[in-house]
């Protein structure tokens, strides 16, 4: 920043340095260029691109989205151009911007995760990898990696071996105890944890007497999930010593501040981008203004500054 008196917005998450704590969430920002008419990409701390798989995926048949109370449901089906197409056609434009490009990746088997990770982490311009473990392991009966502590540790450590850039592991909230999963991700070699991904949900079409989404189940996001997401971030920040990126229902500056205050070192803005494409930059500006008003010199003064004398609400097995 350099201006006398202006707060320092830089954040350090383990080995990952970001120029500010605002990142756009995977699946809500395309490959960045869709938002050029609405904001200056150079202002963002980072962009998590749409999740990349080994081969291109068409995604699910429509209907893929619907609105839910103060939120939405999505079952896009992880549609993407594939990691190789991303590296050759999308990444060159993205890396010309002064923002961290975070490659969100996934696979349907351990081998696929490793192969995608190898390609993505070696690509010029990729600052970090974000590992989406909310995917079913098609080789093991479709059980979601991130719902199983052992599978979590195995996929993270397999990816760790081939990943030369900072490794973020994105956790699913659809688990009994997120601390157990978080611990295994750290044991597997995660540098940073990002949480949470969407909550599973459905919507019913009364007239047609069927589920609204063609694929049935989808992920819920938006303001409706903020209290749940915030609690899960709070639990991981209190229970473990790993850097955390918080997300889930962040629509405004105040929402972002709450996640930072409970211990997230950075935040992701997702569904808000659909409601107002300039959300991420507005939230960034709001964080800066808050730090100035509160006479805090840096984001780190805010992170984890929730008072210690409240009730202990971390229940873990």
């Amino acid at each position, binding site marked *: 920043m350099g201006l006398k008196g202006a707060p320092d917005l830089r954040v350090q998450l383990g080995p990952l340095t970001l120029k500010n704590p605002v990142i756009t969430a995977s699946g809500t920002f395309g490959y960045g260029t869709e938002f050029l008419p609405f904001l200056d990409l150079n202002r963002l701390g980072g962009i998590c691109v749409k999740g990349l798989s080994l081969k291109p995926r068409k*995604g699910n048949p429509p209907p893929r989205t619907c609105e839910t109370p103060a939120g939405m449901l999505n079952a896009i089906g992880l549609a993407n151009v594939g990691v190789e197409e991303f590296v050759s056609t999308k990444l060159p434009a993205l890396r010309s911007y002064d923002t961290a490009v975070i490659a969100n990746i996934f696979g349907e088997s351990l081998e696929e995760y490793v192969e995608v990770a190898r390609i993505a982490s070696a690509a010029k311009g990729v600052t970090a990898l974000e590992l989406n473990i909310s995917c079913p392991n098609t080789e093991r009966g479709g059980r979601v990696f991130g719902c199983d502590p052992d599978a979590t540790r195995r996929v993270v450590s397999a990816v760790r071996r081939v990943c030369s850039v900072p490794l973020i592991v994105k956790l699913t909230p659809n688990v009994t105890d997120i601390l157990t999963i978080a611990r295994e991700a750290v044991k597997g070699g995660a540098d940073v944890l990002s949480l949470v991904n969407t909550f599973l949900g459905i919507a019913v079409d009364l007239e047609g007497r069927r589920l609204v989404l063609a694929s049935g189940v989808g992920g819920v996001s938006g303001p409706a999930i903020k209290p749940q997401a915030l609690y899960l971030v709070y639990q991981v920040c209190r229970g473990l010593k790993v850097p955390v990126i918080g997300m889930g229902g962040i629509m405004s500056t105040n929402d972002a501040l709450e996640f930072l205050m409970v211990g997230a070192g950075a935040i992701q803005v997702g569904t808000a981008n659909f409601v107002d494409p300039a959300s991420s930059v507005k939230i960034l500006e709001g964080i800066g203004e808050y730090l100035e008003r509160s006479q805090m010199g840096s984001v780190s003064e805010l992170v984890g500054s929730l008072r210690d004398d409240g009730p202990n609400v971390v229940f873990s097995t």
Partner: protein
Amino acid sequence: MLRFPGRQDPLLPRPMSLCNVLPGRIQILHKVVGRGTALLAALSVGDRIQALGPLGRPFEIPAPPETGSRAVMVAGGIGIAIFPFLVPALSRAGWKSTLLFGTRRSAELVQLDWFRAHGVEVRIATEDGSAGRQGLVTALLQEMLAVPGTVGMAYACGPQPMLKAVGNLLNAAAVPCQLSLEAWMACGIGACLGCVVKVRRGSDFVYARICIEGPTMAATEVLWD
């Protein structure tokens, strides 16, 4: 995309087409079908709303052929809403236009005088027979297609079964037809990948985003299930 500032529920902006543009104002014509459109209907003069646009690809208007064949607008129900904005553009390009407008009942036949006042030939069908020809708007189209060379170009907007039927008729007659599609949409700017439709790609298909790769698409491209 229209949204109510400060509201988190309903959360998402609503995609609306321009009905007409006048000096200093934009007109939008809509039906009340859910919570978002109910809120729109409840607005009063002086209330504030946020609008993001214009978005998406507009209709293409080729030069009319020498043969005198007409541009035909096929509207089903509230699909009529997009056509006032198209009429002056068709006329500037030199087309003579016909509007084929089908609704369930005569009460839904809006804007007829406007179209006639702007030189558009108007033909009507109502499902209950309360005005015009009893039946579907596709019957009106079939009548025109029965005389080859009458229809030079077609534009259609309305419920999906209507678009499918109209598209099939015009594809079979080898008459170029552009459809105005709609879908459940979250962002309207190509980011969420929610609003897709199957589109022909060689012998395979891709999912195209109606918001930015449409909403207008050639009837020959769309693959209906």
